[in-house]
């Protein structure tokens, strides 16, 4: 999913090979946002967090976000934090925010000063100091059998480490009230009815071939291109990338119809087929 901003080879085939090309490249980094200066408790919680999903964090490119805590963090504390993160095999490469002294300290540690970029949506489970956009609600993910990576990667650009094949899931049994089905790395397809009080979660799209009476959350990692497809819509709640609609707001014109649900200009569109 690398996005070519400028291709150096517009002349087509057969021309001489150029010795280099400049290409735009997006990559996903983790931003470690400090709400305060790191103390013993901070390190304890950090160690705890990293242990849960060690593979997720190994060699992960990391930016330290100082925007909320530059007043409290001292250059010494920053040096200590960077050493700690590097010891844990996190590839710290930049800082964001910070005053003159902090940026100087960061440069001394070989870190670049990053501006711009935007945050991926923060999930409800994380202690959030960030104000969520009022129109969005990020449902806390139900507990998973295996530990989960916490910060969602940025939605649009390519994930760098390797391209992971999506892990789609197909369910061929009715999804009953009180049951939760999660496809946390791909699409979810249900062949059968989904009952009222049942929940479907997918990082990608959700398809339901059967009466859909439950709740569906597509694009749970923030993918705004995710869609929900229902053979017969009677859902309690529909959400894509955190933007949701409840059954109250679904008109009679789409009820029991075959529909698709997608995001357009920050609005959740429910469009019948045919």
């Amino acid at each position, binding site marked *: 999913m690398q996005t070519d901003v400028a291709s150096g080879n517009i002349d087509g085939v057969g021309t001489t090979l150029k010795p280099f090309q400049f290409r735009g490249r997006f990559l996903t980094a983790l931003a470690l946002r400090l709400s305060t200066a790191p103390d013993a408790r901070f390190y304890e919680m950090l160690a705890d967090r990293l242990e849960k999903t060690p593979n997720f964090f190994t060699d992960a490119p990391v930016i330290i976000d100082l925007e909320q805590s530059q007043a409290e963090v001292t250059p010494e504390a920053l040096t200590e934090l960077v050493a700690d993160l590097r010891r844990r095999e996190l590839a710290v490469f930049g800082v964001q925010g910070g005053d003159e002294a902090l940026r100087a300290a960061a440069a001394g540690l070989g870190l670049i000063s990053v501006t711009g970029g935007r945050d991926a949506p923060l999930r409800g489970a994380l202690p959030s100091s960030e104000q969520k956009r009022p129109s969005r609600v990020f449902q806390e993910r139900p507990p998973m059998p295996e530990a989960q990576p916490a910060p969602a990667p940025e939605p649009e650009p390519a994930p760098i480490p390797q391209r992971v094949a999506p892990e789609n899931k197909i369910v061929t*049994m*009715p*999804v*009953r*009230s*009180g*049951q939760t089905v999660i496809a946390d790395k791909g699409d979810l397809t249900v062949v*059968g*009815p989904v*009952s*009222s*009080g*049942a929940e479907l979660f997918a990082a990608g799209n959700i398809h339901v071939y059967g*009466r859909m*009476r439950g709740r569906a959350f597509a694009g749970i990692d923030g993918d705004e291109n995710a869609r929900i497809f229902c053979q017969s819509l009677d859902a309690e709640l529909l959400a894509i990338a955190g933007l949701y609609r409840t059954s109250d707001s679904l008109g009679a014109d789409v009820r029991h119809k075959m529909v698709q649900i997608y995001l357009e200009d920050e609005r959740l569109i429910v469009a019948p087929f045919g």
Partner: protein
Amino acid sequence: MSKVIVVTSGKGGVGKTTSSAAISAGLASRGHRTVVIDFDVGLRNLDMIMGCERRVVFDFINVIQGDAKLNQALIRDRRLDNLYVLPTSQTRDKDALTQEGVEKVLNELREEFDYIICDSPAGIERGAQLAMYYADEAVVVTNPEVSSVRDSDRMLGLLSSKTARAERGEEDQIKSHLLLTRFDPKRSGDGEMMSVEDVLEILAIPLLGVIPESPAVLRASNVGVPVILNEKSRAATAYEEAVARLDGEDLPMKIEGEKVPGLMSRLFGRSA
């Protein structure tokens, strides 16, 4: 091969105990050695419906805790000599049930009986979970009303995930049947109650029978006789037919004031 059948519903008051009594009496009168166990520890009712409350000395909990032998706790029915009741304790609570204890008692019963009917308590707590845990089949008792249907749906979810068969992940999952009780054809026709078809559409399991709302059910409870053995009534006939289907007979479904749901039940028979 003995079969353990749990009679469950999630919601209370839908007719689990009445149905457990009727089903076990029906199976026994068809010649099968049958025992019905009350899993509703602390709210002992089955023995009253079966009319043996004055003969309870030892109970299920005594057997689980090793205070009594199984044979001491089993009460033989006075009307059918191949029907037994294993009553529960009225003074203990559901924590007295242990998984190992339940398994041990069921294994012992499997050696002697063709059918073991487990009368589940309402709710989804320990008692209900243990009642269904070792089941081979389930009879889900539902009233034609939205909250009962939703609770039954929840139970079906638990049956397909929180039972021994589900956990072993075998091909051979619990077979669930729908028993629709307290059905009033007139109110269903008027749209006050859900239709058989509506319920089947949501629950998507094969239909075992539809028991009409009938004063005969209450009269039978009051005298402590399973509906099926008391006076001749529409409810009794409906239970007899449901039991025949549970026992493997292929009877056509007749429901007053409803289109024959044969097609629906056959459709869902495959998908569930």
